């Protein structure tokens, strides 16, 4: 397990809320983003670009496997692993 600070968590959630155009991601961090229609391929790219610019974490497009990045909490974990 990697350690996840509160500040990091909030930073990622802010980015996510912006991309999904919804605060649902903050209220329900286990929501299935793709199944609920909050995210799609385009949002995925926006997320990867924002994460690279703001958090300085680079994730290659083909490394983004939807089943591993399905919820806000999972996204936070995946990003923390790559920090």
């Amino acid at each position, binding site marked *: 397990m990697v350690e996840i600070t509160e500040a990091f968590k909030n930073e990622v959630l802010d980015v996510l809320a912006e991309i999904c155009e919804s605060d649902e991601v903050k209220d329900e961090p286990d929501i299935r983003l793709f199944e609920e*229609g909050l995210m*799609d*391929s385009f949002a995925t*790219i926006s997320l990867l670009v924002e994460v690279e610019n703001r958090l300085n974490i680079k994730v290659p497009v083909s490394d983004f496997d939807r089943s591993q990045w399905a919820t806000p909490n999972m996204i936070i974990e995946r990003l923390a692993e790559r920090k």
Partner: protein
Amino acid sequence: MISFIPYASFRFFIVTGILLLPVIIAGLSGKRITLYNDLVAIVMVFLIFYGQPAQFVSIIAFIIWQAVVVKSYFELKKRNNRSVYFYTAVILAIIPLFFVKLSADVPVLGFLGFLGISYVSFRSVEVIMDLRDGLINEIPLNHFLRFTLFFPTISSGPIDRYRRFESDLKQVPSGKEYKELLYLGINKIFQGFLYKYIIAYLVHQYWMSSPALASNSFFSIWMYMYAYSMYLFFDFAGYSQFAIGFSYIMGIRTPENFNKPFLSRNIKDFWNRWHMSLSFWFRDFIYMRFVYLMIKKKWIKDRYLISDIGLALNFLVMGFWHGFLLQYIIYGIYHAVAFISFNRFEHFNKKHHIWPKNNKWIHALSVLITFHVICFSFLIFSGRLNFLW
């Protein structure tokens, strides 16, 4: 000459079943005899193509070509990850396929083709993409060949991904795990028989080919649309079940291709359920790459425009890939328009909520509308409307 096209004859199932017996026995005791599996792979490629010596020569030349392109790119990239190397490698990997598809208009190019050239090309391009991103750091020739020439999926997919495939290669299932895989595999093969050789056959024989649907009246074409859509699904889903089933017996968990596509609630949902391994390949390597490049380089500012161009590109390439014929290109444009329109609508609905999400009647209506949008696209695809243009 005796045909040995995968899953097309009783002979294929019998011969392959016998060849796989040692694989099954080893698997049940938690072992894998790699040498034997490789031997089966070689024998299968030989059996599939020996009936057509021209294709046999093509596939050998083609695979050498792909191996040289991938290996050279790998070496160059180690020295310098320049974009120009990457794009050159992708173009070189795709060129044979391009010529073969062009042969629909220029028949003289047809000599390059062999059964499954598309699927082998897709696998090769995926490897180049992963090398570019640094997701693959070494690519032993034997792994590359096992991946690209994996016989259960060689003719029409599903399209696996190298890293996923390789992890199955490295991890031999325990006897217990293999028993489960074998059971699932055989189950899938029998589902394949039901789909392809019973349902699709009956639909084709008694509905699609019915003399009542032969005229060009509105009603005939309307009924033909349903018949063809059902036929297309059961025939291809059945084929995919065979391919996945035989993969499982080989200890490889080839990904699924269909997930109840006719129950999709919108066109976006449909492309996550229909011929998934292909649509995901297009999504990951065309649409997403394009969008990433545009956003990153800030070449286009308007986000909707980026997405629309990406989708148009995605589906146009898909259309052309089916063959350089008008019906396929119109099919591609049709899906691009449907997808872009739906995106606009979804965006509008996010603000105005005119189409509620959690209502079962609305859901049923969405499924019904989507079903017809899809079936109409298959009608275009089938060529039944070719008399119009």
